[in-house]
């Protein structure tokens, strides 16, 4: 790795693309791509761990995006995903439509639900926003549990078979895993791109100081509405993976439990990191599958892991990196302290010089 970095320093065009964040993303992506090849029981690992991680991560990522760039904690993301799942079930199974228009229309409906939610919730902030999104999520849950004509109430819509598009057949679990991976990567790219676009800068400005941005002529609520709609769209992408993973849709998709699971995934992964949610998703999926191999009280174990993460890694599991770095730098400091303090000072000065040089 170090050789590639030293070579990048002589190749300025790559410079912009080489950052610790992008390297992590690349490594995780490579691991995700080889995942089906290294597991011994793909029919278990791909759906129960792989695909689950991907849809939980994608939905949680939309929550993290709103939290990180818009400063709003939305508890309706799972609901938007569920609305998209319901759409696919309703159009393709109940109405018997072809699958591709069903998916496209459902993505639209999921996003539309986000837009409607934004119209109601966007004027509020912090806990009020959270409560309104939670309330709307619960309204949809109650509706889904009762509206037998559309959602088939508690029984839900089943089976929703995985489609065969001709060029790709999602009934093959490995193909389906890569399909889900591609969708998750698209979702990630959408958010990364948005964050650095003019729109992204504007919403970050609004997050920091809505009053100033308003004074500068930005329509604060309209920007927030747009961001929420975009996040609902990405959550809906998660809903597409989810519905084909489960092959059915029922009210438990949008229950309070599922909503909170997404929040836990986001917090465990790192509420400030777009990609970290997939690590959160992975940990959560592993716990869901294996915690009971160790103890009968596996819900307690899951809870303890959650508390442990909150206590020791307030920035989520992606905060582990910086923590280890600090640990190493402390050790470096300790070993350096045995040498003369003057050398250390000189090193520090050199470091500062380097940094200054970089800014230029």
């Amino acid at each position, binding site marked *: 790795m170090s050789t590639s970095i*030293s070579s990048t320093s002589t190749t300025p065009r790559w410079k912009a693309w080489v*950052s610790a964040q992008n390297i992590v993303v690349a490594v995780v992506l490579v691991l995700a791509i080889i995942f089906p090849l290294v597991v011994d029981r793909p029919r*278990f690992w791909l759906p129960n761990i792989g695909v689950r991680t991907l849809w939980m991560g994608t939905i949680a990522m939309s929550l993290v995006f709103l939290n990180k760039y818009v400063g709003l904690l939305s508890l309706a993301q799972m609901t938007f995903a569920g609305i998209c799942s319901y759409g696919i079930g309703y159009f393709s199974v109940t109405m018997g439509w072809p699958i591709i228009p069903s998916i496209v229309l459902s993505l639209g409906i999921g996003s539309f639900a986000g837009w409607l939610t934004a119209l109601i919730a966007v004027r509020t902030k912090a806990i009020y926003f959270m409560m309104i999104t939670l309330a709307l999520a619960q309204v949809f849950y109650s509706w889904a549990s009762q509206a037998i004509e559309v959602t088939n109430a*508690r029984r839900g819509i089943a089976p929703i078979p995985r489609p065969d598009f001709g060029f790709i057949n999602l009934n093959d679990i490995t193909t389906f895993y890569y399909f889900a991976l591609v969708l998750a990567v698209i979702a990630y790219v959408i958010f990364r791109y948005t964050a650095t676009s003019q729109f992204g800068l504007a919403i970050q400005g609004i997050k920091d100081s809505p009053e100033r941005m308003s004074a500068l002529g930005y329509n604060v609520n309209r920007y927030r509405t747009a961001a929420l709609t975009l996040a609902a769209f990405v959550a809906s992408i998660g809903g597409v993976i989810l519905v084909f993973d*489960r092959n059915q849709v029922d009210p438990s998709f949008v229950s309070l439990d599922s909503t909170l699971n997404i929040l836990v995934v986001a917090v465990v992964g790192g509420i400030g990191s777009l990609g970290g949610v997939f690590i959160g998703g992975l940990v959560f999926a592993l716990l869901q599958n294996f915690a009971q191999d160790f103890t009968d009280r596996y819900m307690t174990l899951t809870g303890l892991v959650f508390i442990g993460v909150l206590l020791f890694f307030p920035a989520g599991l992606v905060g*582990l990196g910086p923590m280890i*770095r600090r640990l190493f730098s402390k050790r470096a400091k300790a070993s350096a302290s045995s040498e003369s303090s003057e050398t250390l000072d000189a090193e520090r000065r050199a470091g500062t010089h380097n*940094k200054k040089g970089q800014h230029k």
Partner: protein
Amino acid sequence: MKAMLKKRLVPVVAIAATAGLILSGCSGAGGGETKEIKIGVLATDKGNLAFGMDEAKAAIGVSMASIGGTIDGGEIDGVPVTIVYEGTDGTSASAQTAVKKLVENDGVDIVFGPVSGDEGETVVQYALTTPEVTYVNGSASPVGMTLAGATNFFRFHGDSAMWMGGLGDYAYNEKGYKKIYAIAEDYSFPYDNAGGFFSEFCAAGGDVTGNSWVPVGTTDYSSIIAQIPADTDAVYVGLGGADAASFLSQAVTAGVNKPLVGGTIAVDTTALSGDANIADVAAGMIAGGPVPGPDYDSPEWQAFVAEYVKQPKAFPSPSIFSILYYNSFNSLLLALEEVKGQLGSPDQKNLREALTALEWTSPTGPIKLDANRQAIVDNFLIEVEKGADGKLTTKQISQTSGVAQGTKTYDRFEGCPK
């Protein structure tokens, strides 16, 4: 720049290494194939049916004791049997996770379970995709499960419509109820349960004066009680657990003077022991289900109860779940004994033929399968009565033999089921 990159590189490597460890470490957790028979049990161990796992283990314990085994396994004709357990929370999502883990990761030959109807419908869908594994149902009772065409799925107890077998006729002809108002929870189990009752009741000539489908967890029934028309002869209570208890106590307060007809889970100890005052409305309530009344005394039943109470964490008397789990697991065990532990190939042919042909007398009467691998069983009608000490108890009013499955699944209906 270099220093900064170096600083950033540390977390990168650390995370990559951790991810690598997770991948390599966990993939080792998957087991290989063995020559023994591995049975994977699905049962609820959290949520409102959390006691399902204990009841399942008690039932399996009784059954395995008959071959000298334990809840963890035993031996059939020299073939070791291992039993692994996977807990769920009663939702379709957790059942889907758990059944995939049992089949794909633990590599079980036979899946036994699950408990709830929501889980059952999911497990049947999964069974359709894994024809090489045999599924024996635990206590999930939706009608549609054995009508889904999964030839590897067997159910050795009645569905929730069959649990009402005989009650509609009894209510109309013996009790003389001509018009009934229906209150039931709004999910698949009460649909089938009420559907079974009302299809028989309406066929006998009865009429429905109205249906109230309430969400699970409803505690306020005052507005619904107020809707019951005056010319109603009886009220059907398709509620369970705490909901049934709430309804009964509010029925007393609101002065409901109509006799009650209970769904299968309305008359259990939770509802009856909840409030001493409910005796006024609950006494005389009739209900149907797979559980016999306390005065039932077939030798098989007595032998089962005697073994059941010895099990750790057993209730004072067996619940509906332990009875269904026992009848189902013992059916499986008898079939395994029949084939001397040789499952056969392809697709466990021997075992499936033995299961299909099995006929035995269970604690709750004779069991055999129909062409859809659905049991034809006996069903029990019970009536709540006030005991000498003022406490509510149940007595058995009849045992309907050879109740077979209908061909209809029920959804929420208005009036009589269509």
